[in-house]
């Protein structure tokens, strides 16, 4: 059975085809309120899936911290790249 035809604007990012990416981005709300709303929604999705569960474990927080370490590495890369072949640290 064929899938229902859904307008591009209402699709979630995982369903958008590569060719439609440009038009999908055009329909997104990039105002400060919109960005705050998307951050809040992303946070709620992560929180409700991994942390706000009856018997949560270390995994939810550990993923968050690993992401923080990765983000710090990216943030400091300009600084760290000098360490590679430095003779005296």
């Amino acid at each position, binding site marked *: 059975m064929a899938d229902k035809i859904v307008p591009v604007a209402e699709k979630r990012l995982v369903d958008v085809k590569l060719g439609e990416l440009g038009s999908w981005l055009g329909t997104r709300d990039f105002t400060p309120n919109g960005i705050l709303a998307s951050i809040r929604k992303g946070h709620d999705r992560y929180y409700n899936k991994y942390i706000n569960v009856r018997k*949560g474990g270390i995994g939810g927080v550990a993923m968050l911290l690993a992401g923080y370490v990765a983000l710090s590495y990216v943030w400091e890369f300009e600084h*760290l790249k000098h360490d590679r072949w*430095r003779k005296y640290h």
Partner: protein
Amino acid sequence: MMLNFFDQFMSPVLLGIPLIALALLLPWILFPNPAARWINNRLITLQGWSISQATHQLFTPLNQGGHKWATLLISLMIFLISLNLLGLLPYTFTPTTQLSLNMAFAVPLWLATVIVGLRNQPTIALGHLLPEGTPLPLIPVLIIIETISLFIRPLALGVRLTANLTAGHLLIQLIATAVFVLLPLMPTVAILTASVLFLLTLLEVAVAMIQAYVFILLLSLYLQENV
């Protein structure tokens, strides 16, 4: 080429945003609010239990007036503990290594305890400047000494936190560099040094938590004298 060891304490900037901004926001995300439920999930329950244990332990010695400060001091303690512990992760930035931040916490809070004491019970607050039972000829000298020690308290609070964390991070970096350099040359010595590094990391975790606790404990003591 300048020495690199102190560069870890400079806040790097990406797209104009310093990393310290992200590092200061992260503790807010890590401690979620309890939901309006009768029984929360396991993590929130654990968080609430440990916070109430800490509050009980810190605030039992204080009288009713001091309990008004509980929210402020406990939230500050959670903030400092999380900042210190997050700084031990690789590549992260520790805001509490900056003296400016620690003085910004220490001076206003210390000043608030002094002013509260002077407003509500000025005689008792000034009386703290002279310990009981001092011999008569020593009184003038002791008042000067006690005043100096009173004014040095915010400086000590801020510098204690900064120095402990900065020294810990520097030691970790130095010993880790030593292990890296020694590994191709003398593997046995490198393994010994690596075990020192492991023990040092455990110490740093402890220091991170203890320093935050000491900060708050001292503030609560200063509050106890004055409230």
